């Protein structure tokens, strides 16, 4: 078990290395002239900036040397400077991370719970109307472009019905709560400001729901299949024969066995979260890393794009590893080394 973890841990730096290499080529070489991918058009006209950039990235040197300098800079935390914000990319990302995390965590929780619930419902009422209804709902969520569903729901609930707020994290006139974590919900609670907390929560409802809906498809499908399999097992019969009532049978006996593959799927749904983050943040003007990625792309701000990609890939690798390890822990047969 320990060996397994170590092996996987060792694989990560190698993969990150590969990621960085690919990004290096994308950033510095595909355009032919690396300068045009490091500096904006306007900056290119400024000889001082050009000289400084050449020095920083070693652009006069040979390709392998450029590569090493690139790696060295990355390790020092220098991911380049964004043209738009004129700030180091790493700082830009760090600033926006809490917003993304806040939304991502809430969406993950809602999406997982709803997906599990729908999957269990579908399995229990298998082949009846509820089954079809639950599956269709989840499927539609996964088939819709997430930036479109956000748009439509915003229109319906914010503009027409006026029961939910518009884009953004808070009402435009409100101040940001005092900085502790950067997550407005937590920060406003810590500051004791209930109104602000509620405002932050209200602003999260639509974007979180839209992101959660896109995840429900795959989660509910796995849960349903797993549940059908589990409900056919003999230990379910044993539980019933002991006198346990249906609810207990499902929650205590069935669910535990269903959780193992389910947690794995949730872990691997991180990809959906990232995709969702990029698109949903844009629609809802949510100032997170995703929005940053999109604005950077639109402006062809390469340091920013590449920076987000590298960080995103690393995070992706780490979450996959965590999921793998959790799976191994959750399954007592693996844990105890049968």
């Amino acid at each position, binding site marked *: 078990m320990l060996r397994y973890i170590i092996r996987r841990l060792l694989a990560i730096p190698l993969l990150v290395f590969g990621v960085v290499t690919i990004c290096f080529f994308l950033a510095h070489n595909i355009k032919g002239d690396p300068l045009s991918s490091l500096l904006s058009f306007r900056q290119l006209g400024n000889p001082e900036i050009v000289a400084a950039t050449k020095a920083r990235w070693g652009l006069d040197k040979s390709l392998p040397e450029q590569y090493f300098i690139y790696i060295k800079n990355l390790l020092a935390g220098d991911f380049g400077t964004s043209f738009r914000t004129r700030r180091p990319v790493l700082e830009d990302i760090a600033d926006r991370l809490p917003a993304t995390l806040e939304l991502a965590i809430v969406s993950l929780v809602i999406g997982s719970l709803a997906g599990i619930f729908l999957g269990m419902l579908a399995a229990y009422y298998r082949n009846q109307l509820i089954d079809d209804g639950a599956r269709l709902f989840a499927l539609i969520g996964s088939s819709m472009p997430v930036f479109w569903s956000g748009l439509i729901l915003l229109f319906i609930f914010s503009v027409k019905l006026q029961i939910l707020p518009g884009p953004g994290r808070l009402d435009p006139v409100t101040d940001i709560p005092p900085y502790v974590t950067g997550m407005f919900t937590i920060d406003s609670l810590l500051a004791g400001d209930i109104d602000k907390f509620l405002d932050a929560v209200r602003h999260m409802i639509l974007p979180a729901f839209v992101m959660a809906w896109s995840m429900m498809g795959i989660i509910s499908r796995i849960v349903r299949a797993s549940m059908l399999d589990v409900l056919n*097992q*003999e*230990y379910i*019969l*044993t*539980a*019933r*024969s*002991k*006198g*346990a*009532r*249906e609810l*207990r049978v499902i929650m*205590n*006996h069935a669910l*535990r*066995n269903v959780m*193992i593959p389910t947690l794995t799927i949730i872990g691997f749904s991180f990809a959906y979260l990232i995709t969702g983050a990029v698109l949903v943040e844009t629609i809802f003007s949510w100032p997170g890393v995703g929005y940053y990625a999109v604005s950077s792309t639109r402006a062809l701000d390469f340091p920013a794009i590449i920076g987000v990609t590298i960080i995103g890939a690393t995070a992706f690798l780490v979450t996959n590893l965590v999921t793998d390890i959790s799976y191994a822990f959750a*399954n*007592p*047969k693996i844990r*105890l080394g*049968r």
Partner: protein
Amino acid sequence: MAESAPLIEVEDLKVVFMSRMGELEAVRGISFRVERGQVFGLAGESGSGKSVAMLAVMGLLPPNAVVTGSVRFNGVELLGLSSRELSSIRGAQLAMVFQDPLTALNPVIKVGQQVMEAIKLHNRHLSRREIESRAEALFDLVSIPQPAQRLKQYPHEFSGGMRQRAMIAMAMANDPELLIADEPTTALDVTVQAQILQVLENLREATGIGVILITHDLGMIASTAHTVTVMYAGGIVESGVVDDVFYGSRHPYTQGLLASLPKIDQEEEKLFSIDGAPPSLHFLPSGCAFHPRCVHVKRECLTEEPVLRSVDKVLSACHLAESLQNSPIIREENETVER
């Protein structure tokens, strides 16, 4: 403690499974009774409907099963009870042990927790310490060594025999009056089988519990049961006191089963077995369900379904029961069945 009311009385129990491909009659009207403190053997091959019948008694069949007839347990009619009422009887007065303890125990929950759950479900008022000590006592009852440690382990850490003993402990948790054991030793080694049967026998002597023993192994029935009922293709073909049936069987199927028991001193090289195979419940033969495999078959066997009736000392469902006096299945030299 002899009371005249039977512990459980089943009358004309029928089970029909509804599916997209039509109806399937798994149990075609069976009746029997079990007295207190008795061991009732239910014998038959796979597909005879014995397990389905018992699941119907427990109310554990899937929703597409239609159960009719009457099952009176301690005077209470079980069929038609609400699931809430059934749940309070199951695991308390009426308990069941299943065939394969590896799949019958939840693999991700500790064995101790599963046993304690059985206790807790019907004794909500007990403290955790009390439940734990009861669980340990139960493990002692079924001769599982080091109960305190074993309770904390997972099913896959137990040996096969120990798992089955844990299942029995779980079933005994609330002093049931009737224990249904569905092929309790089939999944186990022969040496372990004897142990399990001994455990059951000890329990019976200690608590006076009634047991329904479902098995295809007639040897087991001979050594443990008081009465035996033989099922074939969803119906009862013979029933009676064990000695009466085994030494004076009045049904060709039972006689065939008895003849196929290997004996240590037999001289034949080939073991006897009944020709053919049990019918698929989708396509039951007309008349007597056993007629295609019966050596004594006559014309009426093909058209009329025989009724279970009293013949000599047993109940038999065979048109020719009277003429089957001690008549074995003919082998090579007209040898009679050994005692």
